[in-house]
């Protein structure tokens, strides 16, 4: 009935067509980005990995704005080591399979010198594996979770780590402010929120505070009335929320609405964005967050960056833009110092970066090339602006 030889042929046909399609994918690979005006030498290629569309595009696009700004600045000054910098941007939609494909494309097709991205921890872990095994530097300008730089010597990040800043923040609010009864809100579907909240919780216990109410939300939620009603009933001294500014602003609006007029919210650098105030308005007054830099008392570097960025993009940079800018600039500096754009060479120079004064804070890589940003700034929103509350220095080791 079923002729074996026919089956063999059919199966072979399927394999062949698969192969044809796979290999047929060759040809042009789309590249977008800017090239310099004078192209005397091969440009240095930087790949941007991040979501430009989809649910997490917010972070990717933020990164991208900062990186583009840095690339323009570099190119105006003549590029790196006399090479123009070419940025190749690819949208991974926040999906792991796409991130893997793009990373491979960057390394083997585009032959980039370094990759900046992805702002999400999960995707950095996935892309980092590949980049590290192929000796290409990858620097995430957004991820804060564990198990990232441990992947290998080519994987970096330039963000303020929760494990450093969160305990300092909790120590301040419990011991200096005396807010001991704490209500925590955790965004259960966000790895950032779950991660930073765990650090907060540990620090709260270590500093003698107590979590009297724990509420869960999800990123993307808009209605928090149920949770806020419960928090009101628990009557805490302060609300600790490890999460992002959108949800934070909406929660605070609800908090004020139900009549908790003076209570503050404390969170991580996920709250640091102009949008917090834009969405939250007067409700977010008093919100405290930790950060790598202070926009109100900025260092000259940060000030210059903010002014120039605003002039160009007609908006203030958010944290992701600042981190993206720094990532590009640190890599550029490492290349210049190493006098080479070869990742094998400049990755060591990069790992030795100490006290680099970036726009998002002062950056040092520890012996295990994990990032340390010191000092940590505690900021508080006052009249719609982030103001410096306290500067906490961090030990470098």
């Amino acid at each position, binding site marked *: 009935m079923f002729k074996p030889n026919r089956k063999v042929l059919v199966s072979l046909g399927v394999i062949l067509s698969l192969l044809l399609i796979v290999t047929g994918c060759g040809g042009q690979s789309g590249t977008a980005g800017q090239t310099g005006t004078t192209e005397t030498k091969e440009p240095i290629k930087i790949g941007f990995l991040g979501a430009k*569309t989809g*649910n997490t595009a*917010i972070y990717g696009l933020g990164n991208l704005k900062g990186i583009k700004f840095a690339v323009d600045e570099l190119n105006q000054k003549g590029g790196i080591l006399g090479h123009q910098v070419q940025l190749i941007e690819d949208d991974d939609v926040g999906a792991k399979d796409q991130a893997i494909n793009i990373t491979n494309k960057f390394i083997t097709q585009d032959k980039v010198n370094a990759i900046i991205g992805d702002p999400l921890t999960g995707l950095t872990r996935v892309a980092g594996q590949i980049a590290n095994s192929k000796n290409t530097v990858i620097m995430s300008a957004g991820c804060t979770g564990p198990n990232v730089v441990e992947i290998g010597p080519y994987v970096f990040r330039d963000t303020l780590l929760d494990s450093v800043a969160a305990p300092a923040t909790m120590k301040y609010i419990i011991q200096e402010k005396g807010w001991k009864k704490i209500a925590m809100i955790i965004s259960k579907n966000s790895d950032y929120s779950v991660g930073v909240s765990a650090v907060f919780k540990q620090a709260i216990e270590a500093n003698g505070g107590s979590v009297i109410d724990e509420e869960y939300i999800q990123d993307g939620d*808009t209605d928090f*009335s*149920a949770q806020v009603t419960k928090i009101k009933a628990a009557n805490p001294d302060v609300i600790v929320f490890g999460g992002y500014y959108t949800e934070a602003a909406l929660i605070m609006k609800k908090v004020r*609405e139900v009549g908790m007029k003076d209570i503050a919210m404390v969170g991580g650098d996920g709250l640091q964005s102009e*949008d917090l105030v834009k969405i939250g308005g007067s409700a977010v007054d008093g919100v405290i967050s930790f950060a790598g830099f202070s926009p109100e008392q900025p260092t000259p570097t940060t000030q210059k960056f903010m002014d120039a960025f605003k002039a160009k993009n007609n908006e203030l940079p958010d944290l992701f833009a600042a981190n993206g800018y720094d990532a590009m600039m640190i890599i550029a500096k490492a290349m210049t110092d190493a006098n080479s754009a070869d990742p094998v060479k400049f990755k060591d120079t990069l790992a030795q970066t100490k006290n680099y004064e970036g726009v998002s804070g002062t950056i040092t890589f520890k012996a295990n090339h994990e990032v340390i940003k010191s000092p940590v700034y505690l900021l508080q929103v006052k009249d719609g602006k982030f103001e410096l509350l306290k500067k906490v220095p961090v030990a470098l080791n």
Partner: protein
Amino acid sequence: MKDLMQQLINGLALGSIYALIALGYTMVYGIISLINFAYGEIYMFGAFTGLILAATYKTNVVVALLGGMMLSLVLGVLIERVAYKPLRRSSRLSALISTIGVSIFLSTLMVLLKGPNTQGFPKLFENKVYAIGNFQITIYQIVIIGVAAFLMLALHLFVTYTRTGRAMRATAQDQDAAGLMGVNIDRIIATTFAIGSSLAGAAGVLAGIYFNAVQPYMGTMAGLKAFAAAVLGGIGSIPGAMLGGLMIGLLEVLSVTVNLSEYKDAFAFGILILVLLVKPSGIMGQKINKKV
């Protein structure tokens, strides 16, 4: 107890929004048996229209609401023309995929137009808090529940008493027969899309005001939950959609009250599956006899 009452009010407001979106699902489904996955995006467009009117043109709340409804109406009719009408004679699955295409298109379009950021909604009127006995109700909540109730009542009267409404019900019963009786099926389907979409637009603007957040991907989850609400109440039934919406809203809020908020979404869908297993046509749906 005081807490519970408060949560019921919260749930009622949230449920009203789900119910408004669910109405559109139920109407379109009732007539052409199509799950319109682009429907959540119509809701999102309504919200953005309201936002733009209120923020850029500083209009008042009524204009923003009507504007949101108008644009959603146009969008709904457009979707029907472009992505559904050519597929009316094809398999239902093709039409479903087509609406998924529209959904992806619209949300990406909005990201390109307005960026992926969540945007706050400008204050259209002062929010006041009224204390009734032990619990509070905000004027936002009153407005939302009020507008939703008004629109639902208007829809109910329209479908029950007007000529077009009768034609709609006839079309839902038997499209071919209605066509033979002189009902313009094309027009009825377009009208259904239009009404459903404008309700979603209204829900969008109301959600914008109430939640104070508008975002290009806000439609996906809201759409799924509203669809679940429509099925829960009995798809094709207008009172069913209202009931389903309110139930899902209350359920979500109550899951927070009992400290299981992390399973909020699971509850909404879990109860849906349970109801379907006990009464496959939904709470108020009519049992369809197996046609042999």
